[in-house]
């Protein structure tokens, strides 16, 4: 796929796909349609399938909470969606737990990205790197979509960054077992 290769080219050296560091058991998504859940956009295998996508339910907004198994630094984000229903305004928060739609405006976002039509085809958005230096969890708030309709679809979300040199507690346990 051309989109895929285009996206991967822009990845600077030293940054990795943060997929492996997501704490899947605690991933949350509010206002997701029960038939089109968040794993369709995040999980490996599912996100590569264009037929599977994350869909909003009651209205166009979506709120994703992605905790990580270890502290990371976030460099860039790729959000892919259809031309019409693809997300537009995306707000990112770091280390904010218990966020809901009601208090989403109570905190200043670490970064706001307004996605262009190129962005939702695979062009990465480079974030304010200094704002995402010590990230344990990431909250992504998708405020509206390209066409302003009631339905938002997200095909794929990619997170690029690097891990902070800390002791991975899970790795430590494995060694103790031996």
């Amino acid at each position, binding site marked *: 796929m051309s989109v895929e290769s285009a996206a991967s080219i822009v990845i600077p050296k030293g940054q990795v796909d943060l997929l492996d560091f997501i704490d899947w058991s*605690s991933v949350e998504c509010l206002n997701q349609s029960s*038939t089109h859940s968040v794993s369709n956009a995040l999980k490996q295998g599912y996100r590569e399938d264009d037929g599977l996508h994350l869909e909003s339910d009651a209205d166009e907004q979506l709120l994703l909470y992605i905790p990580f198994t270890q502290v990371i630094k976030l460099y860039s984000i790729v959000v892919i969606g259809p031309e019409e229903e693809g997300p537009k305004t995306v707000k990112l928060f770091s280390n904010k737990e218990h966020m809901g739609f009601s208090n989403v405006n109570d905190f200043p976002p670490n970064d706001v990205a307004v996605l262009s039509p190129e962005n939702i085809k695979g062009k990465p958005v480079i974030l304010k790197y200094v704002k995402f230096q010590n990230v344990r969890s990431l909250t992504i708030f998708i405020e509206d979509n390209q066409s302003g309709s009631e339905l938002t679809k997200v095909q794929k979300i990619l997170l690029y960054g690097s891990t902070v040199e800390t002791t991975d507690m899970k790795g430590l346990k494995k060694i103790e077992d031996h």
Partner: protein
Amino acid sequence: MVLEATMICIDNSEWMRNGDYSPSRFQAQADAVNLICGAKTQSNPENTVGVLTMSGKGVRVLVTPTSDLGKILACMHGLEIGGEMNLAAGIQVAQLALKHRQNKKQQQRIIVFAGGPVKHEKKMLEMIGRKLKKNSVALDIINFGEEDEEKTEKLEALLAAVNNNDTSHIVHVPAGPNALPDVLISTPIFTGDGEGGSGFAAAAAAAGGVSGYEFGVDPNLDPELALALRVSMEEERARQEAAAKKAAEDAAKQEKGGEQQASSQDATMTERASAATSDAENKTNDLMDDENALLEQALAMSMDDPATSHDVKDTDMSEAASVDPELALALQLSVADSTKDATSQSDMSKLLADESFVSSILASLPGVDPNDPSVRDLLASMQNQSEPQQKDDEKPSSNEEEKK
């Protein structure tokens, strides 16, 4: 086995004092809450339940979601009734309590008891409903107590706004003889959504100590069967009442019959007839009356004939008639019948005229000696008369009596 955090919004408004649900609306609600808490905590050990009241000085959270059933049950005691139900505030506070649940893996659910009138605008409720849906909170509404079109409409609108994938439910419980928890136990609020539903209900029944369905059959699953069972139970009850009445009458009759036992065999016959009738009654169906009439008629015919009606018998018959008009009617009929049957009786007398045949029959009867002089006399007199056959009839029956 749904992992859930539940907030139960109970209504403690002034309208809950009404006694149209036994013992009172408020007590019925409390029972239902206890049952729901039991069911929820039983279905999954990690489930939590919290309780808040919607009326009074304001919405008050009695227990934040906990899996400690004792805490939940304890908070239900000593609640004060007062004020008006504030549904909107109640739901919003419940949502807030659920949002800060400790285990984020739990599904969120709010159960609302709406007993008093709903004063909020329909639009406002729909807005709240959409907010719940957006935050993936399911909502169960139990609509009871005050009944008016507007309230039902508002609650339905609220549910429609929340409902996502049929996870939310509404139950309308009209006032009636059935206890509120009993009605709820067969609803989706207890049975859950599909898988593990029956187990859930069973667990709830065990927890609440309430016997599930009336006949061990869920009336929702098979309404026809439930109806058939109910109808058959009512019929059985009516039949038992009729049988008891008959038995009382028969007992009275037996007393009178007993007094006259010495003078006549007919008393015994009547007794036997009544015994037979009550026997027949025990296996009755719809045809009971017809069968009884036939049986009585047959018995009357066998023990009586017009030509030989002795005076004793007549008095007996009148006795019986005074006790049981039905029997009297049957006896009268049988008397009329037997005159009609004269032709067939003449055939019979021809047969009886055949001496050898009669004596062979008499010989075959137990306890009858064909050589007995009285029998011989009888047989001789029978040659030209049709009447004496009656005495032959009597003999075997008196023999039967001896055996008894």
